């Protein structure tokens, strides 16, 4: 399977602060990839570098096999919806579609208009007067209308109400089903992504904590609860991601490729949210230790 994004030790520094460091990823095509992490973790930085809006400080990155946005041909293969879905507030919805048509050789006018009609957007309405959800849908239509191979979305649903959120993700999934699209979207809430993503990347404090297909991650991570046990005493081949203890009980989130054979443990399913949160907590703890 070809990789849509391939990066090697990618880093971006602003003045003295590293917004992204040592980021090595190989994101396969044909997936809806979720990029999660707390605010300030470097998600936007990574996405802006992938779309060619930012130049990295160190490392390399290739998007669809070439450096990002190197030439117009590459620009036409990647669609982007930036944070807060920026649109030209003085232009009407119809004029936005015209912009899309004029600026993109592979623009599919029929598809774009069909979407707008289905969404119920008024062609003559100025984009500045649209609601947040409608703006996000307009921006998504512009990105999808150019028939990209990869769609990158920066926190697309963060500011939307639940209904708008559901409608946006529904539209996105339909495009994925219809057009064989790869998607990379970021969010600081895992719950946004759980239903739609089949590949997860967790980014905390500018570093990648974990990256992999959701199915594989859920199969190899388990929640163990049982009598109090020190994480260091766990058998090898089993990596403890997070541990919490009460007086006589321990709850551990572990990663292992094998089976849990110890009968003392009650093994339960882990949700994607638990998984991401555990990694984020672990990274935050490590960061504190480094700072000390």
């Amino acid at each position, binding site marked *: 399977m070809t990789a849509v994004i391939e990066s090697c030790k990618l880093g971006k520094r602003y003045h003295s602060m590293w917004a992204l460091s040592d980021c090595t990823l190989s994101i396969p095509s044909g997936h*809806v990839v979720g990029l999660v992490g707390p605010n300030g973790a470097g998600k936007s930085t990574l996405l802006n570098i992938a779309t060619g809006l930012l130049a990295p400080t160190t490392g390399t990155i290739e998007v669809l096999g070439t450096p990002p946005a190197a030439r117009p041909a590459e620009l036409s293969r990647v669609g982007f919806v930036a944070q807060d879905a920026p649109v030209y507030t003085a232009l009407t919805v119809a004029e936005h579609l015209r912009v899309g048509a004029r600026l993109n050789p592979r623009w599919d006018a029929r598809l774009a208009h069909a979407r707008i009609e289905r969404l119920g957007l008024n062609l003559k309405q100025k984009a500045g007067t649209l609601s947040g959800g409608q703006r996000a849908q307009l921006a998504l239509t512009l990105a999808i209308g150019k028939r990209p191979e990869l769609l990158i979305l920066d926190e697309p649903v963060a500011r939307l109400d639940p209904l708008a959120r*559901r409608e946006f*993700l*529904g*539209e*996105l*999934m*339909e495009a*994925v*089903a*219809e057009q064989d699209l790869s998607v990379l979207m970021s969010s600081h809430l895992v719950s946004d992504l*759980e*239903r*739609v*993503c*089949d590949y997860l990347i967790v980014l905390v404090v500018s570093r990648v904590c974990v990256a992999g297909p959701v199915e594989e991650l859920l199969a190899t991570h388990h929640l163990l609860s049982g009598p109090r046990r020190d994480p260091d005493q766990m058998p090898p081949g089993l990596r403890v991601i997070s541990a919490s203890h009460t007086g006589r009980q321990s709850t551990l989130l572990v990663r292992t490729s094998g089976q849990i054979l110890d009968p003392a443990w009650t093994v339960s*399913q882990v*949700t994607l949210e638990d998984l991401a949160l555990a990694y984020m907590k672990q990274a935050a703890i490590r960061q504190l230790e480094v700072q000390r």
Partner: protein
Amino acid sequence: MIEFRLDGRSGVAPYLQLIHQVRHALRLGLLREGDQLPKVKDVAAGLAINPNTVLKAYRELEYEGLAAARPGIGTFVTGTLDGGSLAAHGPLRRDLQRWLAKARRAGLDDESIEALFASTFRSASEEGIA
């Protein structure tokens, strides 16, 4: 055509929920042989889930012999679930009604009845009886 729902908090994987709903519909007779299952993109759009999840469910149904994909047209129901319709299980239904009446007389409320049934069902499944 069947309409799918997803319970995000049930802890059951989405693709399994879809499979269960198809089987449930088949049992109740809401879905019959030859009916078309909703298109992948429509389910993905309506529920806002990854199309691969729907594909996985449909493939599993195909594997179980309950559905078949016709490329370019859609996925269609090809099998039925043994046991025919629930109506054929009259004696079982009457036994159940009697048991429910007993439970109510013992003072159990709805929640207790459900909990009692669920835990007994689970432990019985684990013992490989159900």
